[in-house]
């Protein structure tokens, strides 16, 4: 079998020389994940030393902590807006905000983020206008922002399909010689999809700079992880593709920043793709349409409350004295500002243009779409005429 990846990728296929007599590091030595999820701050807020992953500096931790608090506020406010009927649906990432924030923070401006429907907080943290982000979930259009403007793909609803797009963006970036890393998000359920397998395999074979972050929140709607996979961990799957896998405490913002940061740096330096599994928990229902009492007990959920990502980071930063009452006050104001932006934005009803239905299917409308568009326009004119007559 020849590895037909094109020789510009030469030198990066360290795992391909299967006949080599060199006694370098075995694949197992660097592709298998740690025995336990990497943790730098424990749930009590104490630093846990790790030889491989240094603790990020206080400044990065503080700025990321603010994003964490704001992220929680986004989730809570969005849930409220669904209850008030201002949004159609909101898949909350409550409890997973550390993953959301870290995924956005470790990327540079020129990098790409590929989010799923549950990654609204990551997209907003990346810098996309919150109201443009929520266009999807309030039902105005399928996506409200320009993916090229913030190098952030649309939020993918089909599972794992976006991972292949991430590989393609990275492949193009590599061919063009761009200094671009792509971070692609998915959940534990999505690792069962064929596209997950194909994306990891393509990324490894073409040796492209993609970091795959699996947020293992233990449930795919109602189905627990044990029904998805009996692998030792989802991160263990990496070695099967010839890339390193790592697992990390998904409620530990410091550990996520360190592990993801290292994977991103490695990808940027030409080291190829990596798979990171973040162990976290979906604290709330899948969406407002879900009834979790049918498949999990409240006791199970309560076990995760003491592991909350905000509590431990706050405790640690207070101990470190980089966070004081004033700082907490400023962060609370920032969170309330964000909540107000969401409330005010979603309490206005934006105009939707029915004729847009036809405007973007093709660059140039087909004659069939021109006919159908004209038909709708006539209906609108007729309806408008009736409205003016009736009162």
């Amino acid at each position, binding site marked *: 079998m*020849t590895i*037909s*990846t*094109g*020789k*510009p990728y030469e030198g990066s296929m360290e795992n391909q020389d299967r006949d080599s007599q060199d006694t370098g590091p075995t694949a197992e030595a660097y592709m298998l994940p740690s025995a336990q999820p990497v943790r730098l701050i424990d749930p009590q807020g104490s630093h846990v030393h790790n030889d491989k992953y240094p603790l990020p500096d206080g400044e990065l931790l503080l700025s990321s902590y603010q994003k964490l608090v704001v992220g929680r506020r986004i989730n809570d406010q969005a849930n409220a807006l669904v209850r008030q009927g201002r949004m159609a649906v909101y898949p909350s990432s409550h409890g997973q905000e550390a993953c959301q924030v870290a995924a956005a923070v470790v990327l540079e401006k020129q990098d*790409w983020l590929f989010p799923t429907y549950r990654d609204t907080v990551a997209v907003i943290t990346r810098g996309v206008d919150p109201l443009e982000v929520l266009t999807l979930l309030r039902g105005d*259009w*399928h*996506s409200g922002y*320009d*993916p*090229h403007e913030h190098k952030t*793909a*649309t939020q993918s609803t*089909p599972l794992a*399909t976006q*991972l*292949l*797009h*991430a*590989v*393609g*963006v*990275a*492949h*193009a*970036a590599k*061919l*063009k010689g761009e200094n671009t890393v792509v971070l692609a998000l998915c959940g534990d359920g999505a690792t069962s999809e*064929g*596209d997950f397998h*194909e*994306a990891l*395999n*393509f990324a490894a*074979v073409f040796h492209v700079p993609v970091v795959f972050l699996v947020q293992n929140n233990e449930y795919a709607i109602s189905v627990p992880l044990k029904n998805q996979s009996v692998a030792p961990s989802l991160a263990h799957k990496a070695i099967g593709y010839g890339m390193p896998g790592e697992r990390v405490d998904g409620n530990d913002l410091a550990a996520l920043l360190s592990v993801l940061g290292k994977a991103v740096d490695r990808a940027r330096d030409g080291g190829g793709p990596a798979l990171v599994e973040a162990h976290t928990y979906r604290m709330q229902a899948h969406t407002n349409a879900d009834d979790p009492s049918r498949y999990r007990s409240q006791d199970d959920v309560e076990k995760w409350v003491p592991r909350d990502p905000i509590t431990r980071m706050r405790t640690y930063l207070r101990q470190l004295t980089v966070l004081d009452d004033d700082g907490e006050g400023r962060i609370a104001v920032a969170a309330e500002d964000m909540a107000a932006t969401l409330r005010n934005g979603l309490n206005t009803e934006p105009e939707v243009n029915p004729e*847009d239905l036809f*405007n*973007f*299917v*093709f*660059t140039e409308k*087909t*004659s*069939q779409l021109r006919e159908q568009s004209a038909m709708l326009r006539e209906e609108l004119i007729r309806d408008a005429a009736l409205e003016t007559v009736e009162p």
Partner: protein
Amino acid sequence: MTEATLEVEAAKDSQPSQPATTVTFAKALNAALADAMESDKTVVMFGEDVGPLGGVFRITDGLTARFGEERCFDTPLAEAGIMGMAVGMAMNGMRPVVEMQFDAFAYPAFEQVVSHVAKMPNRTKGKVKLPLVIRIPYAGGIGGVEHHCDSSESYYAHTPGLTVLAPATVRDAYTMLREAIRFPDPVVFLEPKKLYWSKETVDLEELRESFESSDSPQTVGRAVVARAGTDATLIAYGPSVPTAMAAAAAAAVEGRSLEVIDVRSIVPFDDETVCTSVRRTGRAVVIAEAPGFASVASEIVARIQERCFHSLAAPVKRVTGFDIPYPSPKLEHWFLPSVDRILDAVDELQWDER
């Protein structure tokens, strides 16, 4: 015919071209790919066995040697992977051309095609364009085993957002593939396998110059009158066009003048050319290999009845494949539209009542 013998057959015809010489359909496609890659550095070609082998039908013959492994390369054997990676590469400034090795082997990519290729530009209000081409060797008539002969055009034509093209001549093979690669939106490009070895006397250099001297599409959305006639209109595309032409030639011997329309652009569909012809002749037969139920042929019939009803002297007939899975090689000739079946359909167009 096995895959291996197909390859040998195709290989025989992959010789370098000369001006105004006999050129196969396969060679015209190969030249179109090479010229597109030469004129636009963002064009990349990938799929299964398209590298050093040149594809199982040799359509990508010589491209890796000429343009390098970065621009024409083999992928792992995974069609969804090929398709999904093409989406991402198109998002990041490339013009990917992918080969699905056979019609029925494209189905693993169907979710990517339907959920993302077709919808991404609409989803993003045109902010993300996907200028990519999905080349699919398709349809039957080559004695292929199961999963090698499907006529899958209806699946794609039914999906809003896809432009679906099916050339039937050597000239169109070249020009339509060039237009597909230059097109701003995703194109499903259906290559009738049985026509790969068909030949015409063509000057590929002249075709190249003609294409490159104009920015506007000449074939996308435009059907063509392949044979002029006055008594009835045969409407066909892709592999059925030569069959329709043969039927028209046979009918002429019997004194009946049949016009043949080569649809060639299934989406966008050229209502005007089709309806102009049918209004003039008053009779029509639509011919396609795919099973007729809920098919492109059905759609064409419906459009004619809606638009040309008062010009029709008889109900519009269809000659299509039966509503069965594609048959095995010894049985396929009973399935495929034939000259006799087309002439029978023409005979049934209520000539006595005129």
